[in-house]
C-alpha cells in the first residue's frame, strides 16, 4: 500500500448559480483512518460528498485517487474507483430482504439465475465479519430498526470491496444504542484498512471515532485537527468561525497581499 492519501481533493471548487458552494477545498483521506467532516448547515459538506461521489462535478480543482488525478462523471465512476457512499436517506428497498438489498444492482448469478444461496452465504459472512447483529438475513428491511437499517446500508456499501467509504450523517436519526452500534461499525471499517469519511453534526460522535477532523466553513477549509490533540471547543469554534485571532488575521492579510 502506498504511503500517500488514497483520496485527495486539490483546490476543488463548485458553484451553483450565484452561490459559491465550495472554494478551493483541500482534503486528504488516508487508508485506515476516520476523517470526520464537520461544519455548520450550508458549510458545503453535502456538496463536497456529492462531488466525491460523482453526483456533482467540481467546476475547478482535481480529485486525486491514489496519487493520480481522476475524473468522476457519474456515481458509477466513483463506485468503480472504489468509493462507496452511504447517503443519509439510505435508499434501501423496504420490501426486499436484507440479502436482496445488500446485492441490489450486483446480484450474484448462476446460469443467469439469481444465486440466492451464494448471496445469503456471503451476506452472513459479511455481517459476521462486521459483527452486525441482524435477526435474519431473510426478513424485509421494513422489520428492522433504524440502527439496523443503517448498518445494513453501510454493509451494502462494502459489497463492492471499496477503499473509501463516505458516510453522510449516519447517526442523525438514531437512538443511543443504535448510534453506538454504528460507531462500532465505523471503527471496524477503519481497523480493516478502509478510509472512512464521516460527515456528522454530532460532535460527540465525531470525537468518539474520528482520527482527524476537517472543518468546513462557508465552503472553505477552516482547519484540519488531529482529534487527540484538539478539544471539542476548538473544533466548535472553527465551525462557527470564532477562531478570529491575530494569527488568522495575519494569514488572511498575507493571502490578500500575494493576490
Amino acid at each position, binding site marked *: 500500500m502506498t504511503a500517500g492519501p488514497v483520496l485527495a481533493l486539490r483546490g476543488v471548487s463548485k458553484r451553483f448559480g450565484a452561490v459559491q458552494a465550495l472554494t478551493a477545498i483541500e482534503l486528504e483521506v488516508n487508508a485506515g483512518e476516520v476523517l470526520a467532516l464537520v461544519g455548520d448547515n450550508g458549510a458545503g459538506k453535502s456538496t463536497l460528498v456529492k462531488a466525491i461521489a460523482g453526483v456533482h462535478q467540481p467546476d475547478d480543482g482535481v480529485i486525486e485517487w491514489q496519487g493520480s488525478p481522476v475524473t468522476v462523471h457519474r456515481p458509477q465512476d466513483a463506485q468503480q474507483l472504489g468509493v462507496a457512499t452511504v*447517503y443519509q436517506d439510505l435508499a434501501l*428497498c*423496504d*420490501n426486499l430482504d436484507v440479502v436482496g438489498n445488500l446485492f441490489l444492482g450486483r446480484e450474484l*448469478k448462476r446460469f443467469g439465475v439469481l444465486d440466492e*444461496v451464494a448471496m445469503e452465504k456471503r451476506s*452472513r459472512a459479511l455481517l459476521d465479519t462486521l459483527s452486525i447483529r*441482524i435477526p435474519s438475513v431473510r426478513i424485509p428491511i421494513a422489520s428492522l430498526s433504524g440502527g439496523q437499517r443503517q448498518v445494513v446500508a453501510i454493509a451494502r456499501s462494502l459489497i463492492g470491496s471499496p477503499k473509501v467509504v463516505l458516510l453522510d450523517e449516519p447517526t442523525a436519526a438514531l437512538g443511543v444504542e443504535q448510534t453506538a452500534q454504528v460507531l462500532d461499525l465505523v471503527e471496524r471499517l477503519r481497523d480493516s484498512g478502509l478510509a472512512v469519511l464521516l460527515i456528522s453534526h454530532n460532535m460527540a460522535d465525531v470525537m468518539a471515532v474520528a482520527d482527524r477532523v476537517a472543518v468546513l466553513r462557508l465552503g472553505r477549509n477552516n482547519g484540519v485537527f488531529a482529534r487527540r490533540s484538539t478539544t471539542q471547543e476548538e473544533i466548535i469554534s472553527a465551525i462557527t468561525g470564532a477562531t478570529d485571532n491575530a494569527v488568522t488575521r495575519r494569514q488572511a492579510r498575507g493571502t490578500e497581499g500575494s493576490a
Partner: protein
Amino acid sequence: MIDDPNAPLQESRQEDGSPRQRLPEESMPIGGVNAPVPVAAEATPAVDPRLIVRQEGVKGYLGEFRRRLSSGELGSLPVILALIVIWAVFGSMNSSFLSAQNISNLSQQIVGTGLIAIGVVFVLLLGEIDLSVGSVSGLCAAIFAVLEVTHGVNQWVALACALVSGAGVGLVQGFFFARVGVPAFVVTLAGNLGWNGLMLQILGASGTVNLSGRDIVSRLYSTVYGQQIAAYGLATAGVALFLGASLVDCGRRRAAGVPYRPVTDIALRTVLLAAVAYAAAYTLNQYKGLPLALVVLLAFIVVLDFVLRRTGYGRQVFALGGNIEGARRAGINVARIRITVFMICSTMAAIGGLFLAAQIQSASQTSGGGNLLMNAIAAAVIGGTSLFGGRGSTWSALLGALVIGSIQSGMNIEGLSNAIQFMITGAVLLAAVVIDSLARRTQKAAGRV
C-alpha cells in the same frame, strides 16, 4: 438484573491465561427491554438473541402461521378462504355448480382474464396501473382476426403481428410514462380510449370478424386432451418439479451452511400441492379432460413467477416497487424496467385478448370492452397483489381469476341478471382492496411493509 461484572473477566483469564482489557460491552447491564446484548469480540454470530426463532416441526409451523396472521402477512389466505366460501355457497344453491362439467368450463373461461391479470400483476408490482389492458386485448384480437380471416395472412404471421402490436402498445405507453414522465394512470387512460378507437378502425364497417375455428388461436383455446394420462401427467410433473426444486435448493443450502427448510416442511408442502393438483386433474378427467388453454395459463404463471423471483430482472422490478430512488442509486436503469414492464403487461393483454376472441369465435366491436378491464385488475388485486407496489405474485392472477370466474359462473347458473352480477363483483373487488389496505396498515404496525 445486573450480573456480576467480574464474571466474564474471570472466564477470559482462564481461557487465554492472561488478563485482557475488559470490553466496554461487558460492563453494561444485562436484561431489560433495550439492554444491549453483550457480544464477545470473538465468534459473533449474525443472529440477534431477541429474534423470535421458529420452532421445528408442526408446532413451529402453527406458531409461525399465527404470527403471520397477526402481523398482517395474509398472503393468499383470504382469497383461498373466499374461494372456498364462494364454492360452498353456489354449490349448496345448485349442485350443478360443482359438477365436473362446470368446473372444466370454468377452467377454460378464466384463461383470458387470467392471462391479462398476469400482465396487470407486473404493473401493480411497480405501484403503477395500466387501464388500457381491455382495449389492447380487443385491438390485438382484431388485428389477428382481420389479418387472418379478411386478408388471408398466414396464421402464424397474424399471431406474431398481434403479439408484436401488443408489445408495441406497451412500448409507446411505457415511453410516455418512463421517459416523458406522464403519470401511468393518464397515459393508459388515454390509451384505453385511443386503442379502442384503433380497434374500431381496423375492424372497419362490418364491425365483426368471425374466426374460422381452425386457426391456431381457436385451437389453442378449444383443444382438450381427452386422455386420462394428460391431466394426471401434468399434475405429476408439476408436483415432481416442485419437490425436485425444493430438495435441490435444500441440499445446496445445507452444503453452503445457510438455513434450509426442514424436510417435514417440504413434505407437507408437496402433499398439499399434490392434493390440489390431483383433485383438479381428477375433476377435469371426469368431463372432457385437460384443456390446453389451462396449460397455457399455468405455463405463463410458472415461467413469469420464475422470472419475478429468481432473475435479476424480477429483483429489479420488486426493487422499483419498493424504493425508486434506492433502485436508481443501485444502478438500476429505472426507465428501461418501467418500459419493459408495460410491454410485458400489454403483451399479456394481447395474448389474453386472443384467447377471449377464440372463446366467442369472433373479434367484434365489443371485444375488450365491458367489465373486462375491471375484472383483470380485480383478479390481480383479489389474488393478493398489492395496489401499492412491491408485493405480489403471478399466482394471484390465477386465484383472482378463479374467484371472479366462479362468481360469474355461479350467478349465471342461478340466472341472476347482469345488474346483480356487477354489484356483487364490485363488492368483492372493494373487499379485496379493503383487505389489502388493512393488511398494509397492520404490517406497518408490525414493522413490515
